[in-house]
């Protein structure tokens, strides 16, 4: 994309820490989130959900609900088009059940009424007759021959004959002579690791306001990471033309991948079409936990060979993931990331995507990678402890670098794993003394990052300030980053840039803020659009001076004559050119659109100290340090925020968060009281070290940083618990009862 030598290295604005432009709105309550959107004549929707894990829907009778005063419409699957296939069908089936309810909380009908209370009461009046069916929620149980069949024909070509119909995809890759490579090892470890499903836990529940006419023209305001995705998905599920549906994103109170798909949006649109009024739906927390996408759960067998000097000779893994009642568990990513940090001559990985009676999984921060890292990095640590090797030295010995062939195939370009390991080794945390009942764990992790379809426009205003229109919703401070990149590229103050996240009617297709892509891809497009504007500004100055545009350069926010024949003119600032642009050729805009693919992967290494109460199994995170490669940190405070956020979510996943299903297949903990995310007082201040190994694929060297930070915590914490207690926990979460039982079993 961008030649290395074209990359800027001396920055005026990049690397500074100005206030985020959306900050004041957010701290004063002025920012409008999903549930804050209102429309005249608006109705409120409520969803009827299955109380069964698996049941045939025999009959839905909405007559009592419709008879309630204030109820304007009821929709069921009959109000959606038929004939969909593939992922479009999966989406439709998930947002509104067809013949069967596939999990506890699956939507089976929806009601629109003149108030939220009436809608809720009406939902209770919808009579659904179910025939409960046997269910399965565990991945290993779902693969057994006697497991209930969730859906015949869901498997793709990759699944060999004879496997249970719940196995919908099989993946295999590898290289090298496994037997010979394991024979070279001095120690071989074989172990099974399990992780439970966790939810993204975004603080803002899903909310939307929908308006759809009988003419197929619609408007949708919603809380999402990607409104073009929402547009495409809703259009498919409802049979609309994509361009006739305009989707405007609200501010977003967290997403972590879980808001890159649809749940309530097409239901609100269908209700609106039927009622002829705008319809708003706001999910409760319980609905979020029961019926939106947590991540997959995993069961993984690892075999790992290591020499006495720490060289990894061979790695083998079987990865079984369930992603709910539909195909799509991130098995491939789990496999690809598990050993991505290491040069291993012989590797064999086999993976399965399995369906169960759970909600359809959705992306969650580095989807799949934390599970693979938990298995692989725990296994490495087990061998290090067994052979008395330093875990950072072993990682350095095997670390991938530029030119290494990755475990999953591609050869790495310039990457920064070694730099993070060296920085971790040098960090005072790594050599600090430990107290009684404390243990230290380290682990590394990787995420690919992503480029994706991107379209950015920029325009100069009459006063010389600049507006940037991006299509990637701002979750983690990206408007600040875009503004900094625009300011840098144009040589104008940060405060003179306004970055707007615009609706689907204002730009070409943008992928969501996912894959750690926004700062990389929208940032790259912002810089390119700014460069186009700089060129136009130079042209206007050249016209005025009567010289060739080639003889004008853009520097420090001004056009300047340059070169031997340019003549002697004073620098012409952007404000001067902008004030006259109507008379000198009209508006000045820049635009860039592409699917950039120079996103560089990001590696990270974490160090954590855990104290375990030996009498209760209770854990305390005593100290935590994140070291990660950011390529180039545009706004270091928000890079650090991403590092800390990834660690915080990983700590929750490792220690206390889990989806707990009863024998009835119903979710036991659909509230934050019992779905235990860490609270602020559970966490120490998480220390961060930003490593900068520039990404050759971005003009300023940016690598995405959002996701890598959640990959090392799971194993790092398990490794620390092993250090603190002498017992190895291979199943997450490491709750006090589990740790105590392990300590007691160890004597």
């Amino acid at each position: 994309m961008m030649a290395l030598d074209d990359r800027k290295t001396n920055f005026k604005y990049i690397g500074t820490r100005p206030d985020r432009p959306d900050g004041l709105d957010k701290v004063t309550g002025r920012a409008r989130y999903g549930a804050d959107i209102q429309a005249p004549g608006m109705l409120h929707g409520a969803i009827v959900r299955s109380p069964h894990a698996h049941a045939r829907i025999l009959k839905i009778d909405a007559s009592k609900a419709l008879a309630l005063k204030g109820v304007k419409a009821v929709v069921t699957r009959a109000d959606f088009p038929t004939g969909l296939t593939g992922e479009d069908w999966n989406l439709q089936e998930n947002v509104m059940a067809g013949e069967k309810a596939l999990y506890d909380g699956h939507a089976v009908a929806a009601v629109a009424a003149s108030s939220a209370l009436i809608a809720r009461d009406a939902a209770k009046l919808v009579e659904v007759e179910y025939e409960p069916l046997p269910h399965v929620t565990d991945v290993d149980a779902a693969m057994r021959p006697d497991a209930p069949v969730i859906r015949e024909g869901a498997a793709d070509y990759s699944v060999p004959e004879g496997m249970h119909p719940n196995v919908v995809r099989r993946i295999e890759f590898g290289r090298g002579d496994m037997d010979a490579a394991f024979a070279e090892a001095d120690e071989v470890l074989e172990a099974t690791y399990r992780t439970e499903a966790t939810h993204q836990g975004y603080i803002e529940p899903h909310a939307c306001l929908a308006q759809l006419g009988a003419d197929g023209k619609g408007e949708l305001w919603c809380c999402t990471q990607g409104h073009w995705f929402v547009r495409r998905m809703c259009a498919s599920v409802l049979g609309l033309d994509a361009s006739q549906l305009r989707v405007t994103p609200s501010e977003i109170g967290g997403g972590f991948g879980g808001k890159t798909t649809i749940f309530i949006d097409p239901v609100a649109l269908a209700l609106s079409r039927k009622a002829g009024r705008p319809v708003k739906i706001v999910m409760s927390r319980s609905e979020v936990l029961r019926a939106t996408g947590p991540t997959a759960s995993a069961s993984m067998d690892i075999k790992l060979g290591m020499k006495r000097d720490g060289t990894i000779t061979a790695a083998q893994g079987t990865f079984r993931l369930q992603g709910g009642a539909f195909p799509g568990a991130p098995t491939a990513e789990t496999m690809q990331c598990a050993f991505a940090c290491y040069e291993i001559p012989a590797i064999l990985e086999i993976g399965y995507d399995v369906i169960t009676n759970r909600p359809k999984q959705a992306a969650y921060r580095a989807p799949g990678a934390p599970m693979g890292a938990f298995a692989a990095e725990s296994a490495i640590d087990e061998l290090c402890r067994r052979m008395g090797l330093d875990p950072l030295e072993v990682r350095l010995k095997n670390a991938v670098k530029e030119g290494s062939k990755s475990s999953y195939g591609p050869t790495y370009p310039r990457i920064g794993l070694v730099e993070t390991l060296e920085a971790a080794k040098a960090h005072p945390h790594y050599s600090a003394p430990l107290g009684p009942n404390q243990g230290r764990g380290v682990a590394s992790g990787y995420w690919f990052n992503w480029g994706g379809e991107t379209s950015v426009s920029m325009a100069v205003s009459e006063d010389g300030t600049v507006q940037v229109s991006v299509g990637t919703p701002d979750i983690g401070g990206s408007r600040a980053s875009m503004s900094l990149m625009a300011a840098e590229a144009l040589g104008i103050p940060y405060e003179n840039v306004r970055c707007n996240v615009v609706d689907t009617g204002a730009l070409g297709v943008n992928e969501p803020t996912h894959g750690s892509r926004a700062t990389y891809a929208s940032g790259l497009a912002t810089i390119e659009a700014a460069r186009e504007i700089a060129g136009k500004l130079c042209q206007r100055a050249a016209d005025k001076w009567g010289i060739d545009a080639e003889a004008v350069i853009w520097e420090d926010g001004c056009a300047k004559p340059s070169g031997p024949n340019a003549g002697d003119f004073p620098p012409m600032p952007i404000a001067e050119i902008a004030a006259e642009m109507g008379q000198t050729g009209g508006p000045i805009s820049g635009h860039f659109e592409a699917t950039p693919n120079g996103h560089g992967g990001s590696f990270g290494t974490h160090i954590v100290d855990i104290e375990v109460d030996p009498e209760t199994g209770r854990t305390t995170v005593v100290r935590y340090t994140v070291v990660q490669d950011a390529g180039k940190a545009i706004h270091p405070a928000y890079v650090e925020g991403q590092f800390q956020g990834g660690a915080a979510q990983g700590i929750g996943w490792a220690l206390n968060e889990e989806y707990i299903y009863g024998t009835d297949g119903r979710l036991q903990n659909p509230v934050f009281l019992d779905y235990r995310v860490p609270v602020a007082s559970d966490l120490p201040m998480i220390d961060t070290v930003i490593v900068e190994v520039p990404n050759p694929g971005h003009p300023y060297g940016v690598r995405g940083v959002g996701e890598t930070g959640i990959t090392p915590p799971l194993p790092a914490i398990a490794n620390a618990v092993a250090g603190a207690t002498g017992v190895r926990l291979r199943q997450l979460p490491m709750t006090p009862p589990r740790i105590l039982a392990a300590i007691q079993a160890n004597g």
Partner: protein
Amino acid sequence: MRYHTPSSFEEASEIAAAAPGITRILAGGTDVLVQLRADIVEPDDLIDIKRISGTGDITRSDDGGWVIGAAVPGVSLSEHAALCADWPGVVEGMALVGSTQVQGRATLTGNLCNGSPAADSVPGMIAAGAEVSVVGPQGPRRIAIESVPVGPGKISLAKGEIVTAIHLPSRGAQGGDAYERFIPRTEMDIAVVGVAVNLRRDGATITEARVAIGAVAPTPLLVPEAGAALVGSTLDDASLAALSEAVSAACNPIDDKRGTIEFRTHVAGVLAKRVARTAYDRAGDAK
């Protein structure tokens, strides 16, 4: 739903006695309103007692004890220096309920009458030997705290009966109490195990002790054997071991999403020792 704001407990009791359907008493509302929103209960009659004179007061009684009105929020207990000095264990139990915001509303009486086996303030009140005053169709009465809860979500009060206040006894000399709960996190959680100890010393020797446990049986329990294990001792290792054993033996918990039977039983014994040490030290510091 009918919403009532009686100006006396007698009036409140009459409304409750005459109410035909589901009745709930509203003080802080931190249980009732949440249950209402979560579709757990939809009362036909909601009786708000906050407008009754005196329900928001903390007063010292003639015998040196304390009377805590039924609508006194947790934060008022924590900010009451003299009460905190007398009964730190009772106050710290209540202070663990919910967040700062919840503390501005939630009450001791509500925490008791919600009937949760895991109610954080109840073991401390039982250990303290506290009582509640009740008005009802049969007139007023005073009963021990431990006789109020009878099962998860169930209390012993008859139809029309309403708790008007909590009565804490006089602290007396060389007394100390403490409460601790086990949660996997540091706050905003529900007790997996809770233990309260209230004792009195004569020099180094324990002369009286009451031990109560929560979240390990269908109701919070007074464990007389555990108290007996402490009396006459100087909190030596043998008495702590006996205490721990008595507490674990009294546990009758369930296996659920919050903890296993084995875990709860074991941790109750562990916590009992820790809480007893705190109460013992507090008694030593007291006048």
